[in-house]
């Protein structure tokens, strides 16, 4: 099947029900998208499909044929994504970093669809798990990007 990922076209020979996650990681060698649970619980595998955030571990690859997939590898080619990354670095969000690809993707999707989200909209969108507990820093970074003053924590 033919996939569009990061504005490139790939031919892959995968079973229709293979999760997009494993096609990206094993077939295409892009390892920025992470496996955490395989059950849509953690969000480490978040990618964009046609601009919306999806969890690639529960996305059968056949379902994204003909759609535009964006992974963390191409995040800085997107203006919003580039800003998100810069803000993530500025706020020193990452600790172990394993979930952060997914967090950056979720933030990018949110801000692309809604450049000025409210606090409630941010809380509704930023639901990925982080075992290091970087939640305050994530929130501060997204608030910064949304032009809101920080309301939570000092991190």
């Amino acid at each position: 099947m033919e996939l569009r990922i990061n504005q490139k076209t790939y031919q892959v020979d995968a079973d229709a029900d293979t999760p997009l996650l494993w096609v990206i990681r094993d077939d295409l060698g892009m390892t920025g998208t992470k496996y955490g649970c395989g059950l849509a619980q953690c969000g480490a595998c978040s990618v964009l499909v046609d601009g919306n955030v999806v969890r690639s571990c529960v996305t059968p690859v056949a379902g994204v044929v003909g759609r535009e997939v964006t992974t963390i590898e191409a995040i800085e080619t997107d203006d919003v994504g580039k800003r998100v990354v810069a803000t993530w670095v500025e706020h020193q969000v990452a600790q172990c970093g394993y979930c952060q690809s997914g967090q950056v993707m979720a933030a990018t999707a949110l801000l692309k669809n809604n450049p000025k989200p409210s606090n409630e909209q941010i809380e509704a969108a930023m639901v990925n798990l982080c075992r290091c507990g970087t939640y305050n820093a994530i929130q501060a970074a997204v608030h910064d990007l949304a032009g809101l003053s920080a309301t939570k924590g000092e991190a």
Partner: protein
Amino acid sequence: MNLPIESLNLTDPVNVSRRRFLAGTAVGALVLGFGLPLGSGRALAAAAATERGTQVPAFLEIRPDNTVRLLSPFMEGGQGTHTAMAQIVGEELDADPATFLVEAAPPGEAYVVLDNGMRITGGSMSVRLSYPTMRRLGALARAMMLQAGAEKLGVPVGELTTEPGKVVHAASGRTLTYGELAERAMDLPVPDPASVKLRDPSQFRWIGKPVKRVDAYDKSTGKALYSIDLKVDNMLHAAVQHAPRLGMTVGSLRNEEQVKAMKGVHSVHQLPGAVAVVAERWWHAKRAVEAIQVDWLEAGADSRLRSMPADFSSDAYVKRLAAEKGPARDAENEGDVAATLASAKTTLQATYHNQYLNHGQLEPPSALARFNPDGSLEVWLPNQAPDMFRADIAKRTGLDPARITLHSPLLGGFFGRHFLYESANPYPQAIALAKAVGRPVKLIWSREEEFVRDALRPIAAVNFRAALDSDGMPLAIEAVSATEGPTEALAGKQGEKIDPTALEGLAGKSYAIPNKRIAQIYVKGPAMLGYWRSVGNSLNDFFYEAFLDEIADKGGKDPYELRLHLLRDNPRLTTLLQAVGELSGGWKRGPFTAEDGSKRARGVAMASPFGTQTAVIAEVSIEHGQVKVHDIWQAIDPGSIVNPAIVQAQVSGAVALGLSQVLVEEAVYVDGKPRARNYDLYPILPPSRMARVHVRIVESGEKMGGIGEPPLPAVAPAVANAVARLTGQRIRSMPLSRYTFT
């Protein structure tokens, strides 16, 4: 999936490939395993140095572009140790930490830098116990740069100084970058360690400053590589299915032929306590291994592993622990507790317990093993003690340690998961599979297979008794804990001395209570235990600090004031407790009504883990019957610090884990099996349950303490104390999600 990876490599730069590794990103270099030329004359020369952490060329490579590659003795798992190492070494070397490329060093005596002679990343030891050594390392390297500069410029070394990244001859205005000098400098003998002078702390540019993490950008863009991401040429993927209970072994496979015929399957293997499928793709391996129908056999009497009985229930086990009568061994015994309890008019007693926990690090365990044509073995694996792991691999394979190359990539979460747990690491399986198939194998444990083998945070049931004087002040406290410490679990038996990791947090409290007894009843349990962030303190401070609030209530004292009173002769802790009170806007226990109309209360607790002192205030309300934690104020005194930004982040993260354990987390065993095999039934703290975290760092100047773990233990009791104040319900166990509050 038959798109040939090799052909992709040549045409598409996004693929991980040998070519990319050769091109050399930081971790890519690690993957190829080209390390520093330790066998060369440089290292031999350096080996003459006998003092710890003085073999400069083993640690540092300064590239022509002035990039400083530092091989860190410590593993980076989020705690910021690589950045701290760059700061410390950079400060003395006179090189901006931003120019550092830090990777984990291979095993080897050269990298044993801790005061205690160990090479382990854990116990919040890395910075505090290597600080002077790593500073000296930087200073030695700087001296070598100066010496090389003197030779190259033909001037006396005394005329030279350094500026970040370069040697300066002020008299002539000439400068040489470290990159230009490195080749020559690293061939020089390492100077006498006593000959170098360390920088005056008042002149620090980077130590003590919120220097940016060296890994922030890579980790924000998916470029950081973890064990699970690595790939070598000709590699196969593997997945396992573990026996449902530890200790069980493979009897027979009912459908091996069918599984072998499944798409992508290379081979099917039987391993100790597991079956494995090797395939060209992990997804194929995972689906095939799940399809194997295994007849599992009960553990034999000769099993090396703990065998989990078929009727084990964690709920029943807690009840058993609470009823344990002895014998007990004392860790602390001061005054006369028994007599005081017998004679006191007012006494109280209570039984507390906690829950098993999983580490739940987000990166599932993996290991990549490759036998090279010369018979040597390379292994890439998450670990926190490379020398111990290499020794274990040597023992398992019969290979000389010198023929084993061990790589330690970034860790996707630390929390104590990556210790040498006999049954909880995938590398023995990966090595066995690589050997069996004659090709490199990367094994990934699915989340489900991880949760069934993770080494659990221990549980304890503690029976407390206390006696109060007529003023309501505590005269005696006794805590008898029925438990097994993680170190005892690893040893499989009780040691000659009490396992400090069993009682820390009950023992080692600073309150001036004249009579006290802290004791352990050792109970060996069937579950395999491990270290979990802040170890024994994670449970014991919950017990002690919550019971201390019960003492305060019984004596009619305010718990904050009582603590101040009991610490009146301890200026360091008094200052700290006052600091957290101040940070929270002044101690206010409540209940009170917040601006949003919710009824709230606050609780306080303290802890003294890993050489650091902490005090926490929590503010809670009840929402839909469950506890909502609004704010956590934490004052932390680690003596002195290296990076306030990282300290702040570590406190915030440790608070999250502390909240997670007190609010939602629990590994429940039913019929010998974990009820949860994934995050669906094992919830970890989601963003919606996170509190605002406010941090005050107090630098008392005392001996440097740890940072990664200490901010955790006081969180749970502060929350429980606030809940008790708000609801009148004194909860003596975790997690609070077991209860409904009104």
